[in-house]
């Protein structure tokens, strides 16, 4: 026998179920219990940088939109600084929250985030990553929350040099990680849980 490695196991994940919105966005479900739902607004005042809107829909393997998902995003400010206690490189824009949570539209399931275009953040080895937003998707039928990243179609040079994107074997899947610019100036980022356009999900 050897000594015991007494690390703990991470708690097993379980599905958020069909009623995740009761717990995470109760006001959205009509339970007016807190002042407002967390993550509704990513800005507490005027922010620096380019303000952008991101819309999207989560689709299942049959192409049906999910109407019971919850999507969260997490990102740095326009200068690439996170409004986080763990940010040691400088102070982020005080009016930028960096985190957003969307329950999706009650009827269509479309999620929407009113945010800023993120600045670049270094990879652990010091190289710069392309501007990106971390996205996390939970819903009934999803056993462990899915991590993906929203990169920007209109950043081709930064994307080409990105340490993660450039290491992806199936380069033909990279468009699943790109938010596309729409005629009205907003970005669209749809998530496909399965199928020929299955979004790349990360195990970070």
């Amino acid at each position, binding site marked *: 026998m050897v000594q015991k490695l007494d*690390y*703990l*196991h*991470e*708690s*097993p*994940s*379980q*599905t*958020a*179920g*069909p*009623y*995740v*919105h*009761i*717990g995470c966005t*109760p006001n959205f479900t009509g*339970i007016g*219990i*807190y002042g407002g739902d*967390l993550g509704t607004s990513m800005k507490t005042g005027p922010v620096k940088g380019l303000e952008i809107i991101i819309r999207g829909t989560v689709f299942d*393997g049959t192409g049906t939109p*999910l109407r019971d998902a919850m999507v*969260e995003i*997490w*990102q740095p400010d326009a200068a690439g600084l996170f*409004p*986080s*206690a*763990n*940010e*040691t490189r400088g102070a982020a824009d005080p009016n930028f*929250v*960096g*985190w957003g949570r969307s329950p999706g539209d009650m009827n269509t399931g479309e999620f929407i985030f009113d945010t800023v275009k993120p600045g670049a*953040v*270094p*990879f*652990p080895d010091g190289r710069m990553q392309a501007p*990106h937003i*971390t996205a996390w998707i*939970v819903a*009934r*039928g*999803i*056993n*462990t*929350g899915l991590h993906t990243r929203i990169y920007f179609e209109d950043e081709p040079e930064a994307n080409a040099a990105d340490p*993660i994107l450039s290491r*992806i074997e199936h380069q033909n*899947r990279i468009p699943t990680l790109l938010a596309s610019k729409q005629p009205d100036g907003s970005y669209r980022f749809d998530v496909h*849980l*399965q199928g020929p356009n*299955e979004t*790349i*999900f*990360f*195990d*970070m």
Partner: protein
Amino acid sequence: MSILNGPPKSGGFIPRDRVWQPDALTPPYKTSVKRSPQAALLSFPTTLSEETSPVFGHSILGDLDNDLILNYAKSGESAIGPRIIVHGRVLDENGRGVPGALLEFWQANAGGRYRHKKESYQAALDPNFGGCGRTITAEDGSYEFRTIQPGPYPWPNGMNDWRPAHIHFSIFGHGFAQRLITQMYFEGDPHIKLCPIVGILKTQEAIDALTAPLDMNRTVPMDSRAFKFDIVLRGQRQTYFENRKEGL
């Protein structure tokens, strides 16, 4: 939302143990069949994007946010059902308490009914029970809240599937990599071994990790029973040796 200052950490998060965690595709839980990614997840070490996280200060909390017996009840009234205290600690895989973690929880009422438009179970709504609450862990990672014990409820999966009594938990730690949603079950519930959602857990040890024991030490005599539920988030790798030359 305020920023809680903590000591900076380094080394990245320990990879999630995908052998221990449930698979994405678990056909007895039917909804997973068309909602599970089929390609392999792409593995990368965590970067700043996953090692940072929003931090929620205690200032967001209202006085009754951690009291589901009262937080939706009319003045002078309270939710119906067995009164319980749920308490425990949020720890990381290294066994350290996680302070400042935001916990959000939601549940059915004592009859097994959720307050939701899409809920179709005929059990009665409790006019004094909303079904959600939240709290933030203390310096040692501890938390507690008061609620009523939820009832089991039927759900459309097999012809006669019932969920064990459970409370859903959403947890924010110190890095977005730690983001977790899970469920707490109650010791002794005979539905635990019958439930297809519990059934996605791969070992008895994993089921036990989500099953809260009755904790008589924390009961309030003649008032509430107590259940203890510890939650473990991913740990950070400790890097003591950083004096290597580049490339070695």
